[in-house]
């Protein structure tokens, strides 16, 4: 739908939604109304106070600033919008994101960008466990560290961690590229350290650049799938 939308919004038009007086449903309805025709480009959300489901299902090139801490599933299913959270977020930020950018100024709880197909998630603080679980093409850049089981069953896209990674990184990994600058507590099943070739340095450089972080790409280690769990091996039949 959004590809065919007409952009009518005048530059500088901005709407403020204060959740001290309006509901989360009011906010999401107002944002969804922009899907077919954008009349207001910039949005500001005040007093989020940990509410869940803020700015979910947005389908338009909106710029949304959430001032404060958000609850679960913030910016979930995002398409095209650039959503910045000036605080922490709960579980499942940008879950199933399709495109656009979600930027968390604070920390993120578990399952950040779970199953996300596209777009960029930037976390300036730390992310909890299962960051990028089953990610399907999105890119995630975390300035801090990520918790255990991050990138579990990651299928496509890239996870960049400027800090450390917790236990079982990349367990049952498919083709997500993982780059970690700090230490990795342990690797999950079928996840191995891999050679950093020029194409990977280029990808990493570009992602750090998009996130606005100045970490040296050469300081990172790449991890990927050993591709040993892709197919059923008849030798393992006895184990079932």
């Amino acid at each position, binding site marked *: 739908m959004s590809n065919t939308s007409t952009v009518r919004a005048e530059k500088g038009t901005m709407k403020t939604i204060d959740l001290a007086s309006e509901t989360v449903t009011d906010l999401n309805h107002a944002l969804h109304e922009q899907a077919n025709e954008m009349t207001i480009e910039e949005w500001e959300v005040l007093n989020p106070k940990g509410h869940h489901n803020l700015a979910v299902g947005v389908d338009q090139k909106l710029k949304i600033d959430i001032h404060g801490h958000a609850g679960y599933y913030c910016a979930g299913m995002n398409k095209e919008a650039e959503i910045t959270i000036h605080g922490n977020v709960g579980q499942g930020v940008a879950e199933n994101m399709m495109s656009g950018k979600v930027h968390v100024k604070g920390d993120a709880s578990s399952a950040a960008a779970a199953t996300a197909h596209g777009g960029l998630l930037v976390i300036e603080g730390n992310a909890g466990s299962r960051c990028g679980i089953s990610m399907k093409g999105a890119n995630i850049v975390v300035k801090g560290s990520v*918790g255990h089981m991050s990138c579990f069953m990651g299928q496509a896209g890239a996870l960049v961690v400027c800090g450390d990674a917790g236990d079982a990184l990349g367990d049952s990994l498919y083709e997500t590229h993982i780059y970690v600058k700090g230490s990795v507590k342990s690797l999950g099943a079928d996840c191995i350290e891999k050679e950093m070739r020029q194409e990977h340095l280029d990808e990493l450089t570009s992602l750090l650049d998009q996130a606005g972080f100045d970490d040296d790409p050469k300081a990172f280690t790449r991890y990927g799938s050993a591709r040993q769990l892709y197919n059923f091996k008849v030798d393992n039949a006895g184990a079932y």
Partner: protein
Amino acid sequence: MCGIVGLYLKNPAMEDKLGELFAPMLIAMTDRGPDSAGFAVYGDAVDDGVKLTLRHEDESFDWAALAKSVETDLSTKVDWFQNSKVAVFKVDLDAEIVEKYLEENHAEVLIMSSGKSIEILKEVGLPERIVDMFKLDQMKGSHIIGHTRMATESAVTMAGSHPFSTGLDLCLVHNGSLSNHNRLRMELERDGIKFDTENDSEVAAGYLTHRLQQGDSLNQALEHALKDLDGFFTFTIGTKDGFAVVRDPIACKPAVIAETDDYVAMASEYQALTTLPGIENAKVWEPEPSTIYVWERDK
């Protein structure tokens, strides 16, 4: 799903407002647990003897008569007050003596908690109703933990509500579900631990009681719990001097902690912390899996 909240005041000047600060935290977790709610408040400690929280189903139960018979039969003095269906008895004797007397002579009265400062209050119903029923917002004290329940493993009853007493001045609230509670209950019953319900969280409480009876410190008991309890849990454990938080190794059940110079607060979700003073500038983080956090004031 259930909700957990806890508030520990570092600043004694705020103790008069403990209930007022805590009531909105408990109510904020209604979405996570609308079935029943309860809390354990620590304050108004007795120097000698024991403080018991007692409950009788009948709100017009004659507590004065019970106090009188305790005084006569045990040759002691009882200082008491009533709050809805419960009464707090302060008795100048050892906990064991008073508990044994009540169990043998007044079995219709339930002992909700015993210790120097703990009071456990819980009922079936919306958290807001429980707050009103016990006038929680007027309560004073040093720290408090609470729970809002959405039952998964057993019936919605007062007895199945949290917190569960786990010994003198100790109690437990739980968010999650335990997979091995039936087997564990059988084993604990063999060791003499008594259970009132089919509730999985009561087994966790009974487990801690057992470990502490075996001479474990609270930390050691929780270390053992991490090994022996199979399932999902975030526990908050109230102690005489503070509270502890521990999450299982997978850490599926949420928990968030906020700390300022004045307090440490924990909740299942950040929403429950938003009414606290200075929360905007508090240090906010999620407790790590398999890690025991303890906040206690100097004894």
